């Protein structure tokens, strides 16, 4: 992401992370305001699905982010394992809760969307099922990390799990798709594919703005989370002590 090698030491990354978190936070809020305005007032009503389709503007970015964050997390985990840098492992674990949250939002909004569109809160659609499994993977990552007391072992073990997961994600995704087409006997027709092709230009723009809002939010939140992790893990070191006493003075 940034110049990792220059800032790979927690002491020099800490203040940088603080500035970046604020910057991304502000950008995210601004984009979110614009994006929400566009999704509710600017984007036209869908000729097929009426107003209900507007939930897509949060559902699709959340689904994208949930997958993207897992990949980024695995990259950080891999970097942490290869170069044995503490900071990348901390970044990986800071991303996990945000990723899980987006997965949950994607599932939740998917259910809300499904009720009017498909007539059921939950259908075993390939995308929904894969998203559910992704949630399991996030939960497993966080559960493993929190079950290990030693922070170093926790970082390394959960990093390895993230790598195992990212190798499996495509296999799981394609097997679920295969499974879904095999069992596609019922009357359910997946319509999400239909929307994207028939989307007007303004819808695409709204979607993009919302996606960047979510993305910047993820960056801001995980950076501020990594800041507190740094403070916690490095609490014994000199620079944290001077930082804390300096703040008080």
């Amino acid at each position, binding site marked *: 992401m940034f110049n990792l090698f220059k800032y790979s030491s927690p002491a020099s990354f800490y203040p940088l992370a603080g500035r970046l978190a604020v910057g991304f936070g502000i950008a995210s809020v601004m984009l979110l305001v614009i994006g929400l305005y566009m999704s509710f007032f600017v984007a036209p009503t869908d000729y097929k699905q009426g107003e209900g389709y507007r939930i897509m503007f949060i559902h699709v970015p959340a689904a994208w982010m949930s997958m993207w964050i897992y990949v980024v997390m695995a990259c950080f985990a891999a970097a942490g394992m290869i170069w044995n840098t503490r900071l990348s492992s901390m970044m990986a674990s800071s991303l996990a809760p945000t990723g899980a949250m987006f997965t949950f939002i994607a599932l939740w909004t998917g259910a809300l969307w499904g009720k009017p569109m498909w007539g059921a809160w939950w259908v075993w659609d390939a995308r929904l099922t894969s998203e559910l499994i992704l949630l399991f993977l996030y939960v497993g990552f966080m559960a493993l990390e929190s079950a290990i*007391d*030693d*922070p*170093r072992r926790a970082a390394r073990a959960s990093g390895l799990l993230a790598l195992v997961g990212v190798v499996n994600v495509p296999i799981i995704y394609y097997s679920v798709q295969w499974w879904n087409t095999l069992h596609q006997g019922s009357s359910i027709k997946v319509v999400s594919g239909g929307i994207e092709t028939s989307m007007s230009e303004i819808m695409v723009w709204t979607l993009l703005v919302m996606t960047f809002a979510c993305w910047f939010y993820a960056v801001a939140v995980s950076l501020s989370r990594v800041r507190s992790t740094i403070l916690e*893990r490095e*609490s*014994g070191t000199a620079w944290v002590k001077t930082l804390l006493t300096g703040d008080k003075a």
Partner: protein
Amino acid sequence: MGKALLEIKGLECVRGDNQLFSELSFSLEGGSLLHVHGPNGSGKTTLLRAIAGLVLPENGEICWNGEATGRQEDDFNRELLYLGHHYGLKFELTGYENLKVFANLSGAEISEHEVEAALTRFGLAHCVELPVKVLSQGQKRRVALARLLLQRSKLWILDEPFVALDVAAVELLLGVIKAHVGDGGMVILTTHQEVAMDAGKLQHLHLGEKPAASMAAQR
């Protein structure tokens, strides 16, 4: 002689958020014994496990024959015998079966007779065919120690090897250690026992007295 086989350079180990030791450097040559001292929690066991390659050090390097142990395939492990707090024995197997498994895996051709001889040396002649679980603590320790005689490793790393042994067995083990050092072998051990050596070199390492400063090896 004279050439350091084992070199520790700037080693730092942490446990949890605690730094156990840092900037620890020493070297060890053939025919010497390193006695590691230190109060509880000073990182003696961690140091031994780090040298054996079971613990990944936070910083620093451990070199065997001039090459980092982590980068050697199995050459270092072939020269190494580590005995820790656990016996490392399967209690359902007999002493003989336990020793045989490790002998097979270490690639050494070891005859049935040699295994029995090693057990007999440690006073376990009558226990060869008994499952380890019926043996006493001291006897279990002796079965584990019998591996010292079988595997012909150069470097022995022994974490509290005298625990649970009776007086006779302590004498016996001291004799075995001295013979090994006398033959040019190397031993690193932790113990509260006084170890007097008449052959080879005796080195002492004190952990955890003053942080960082006193951790260089003392002769």
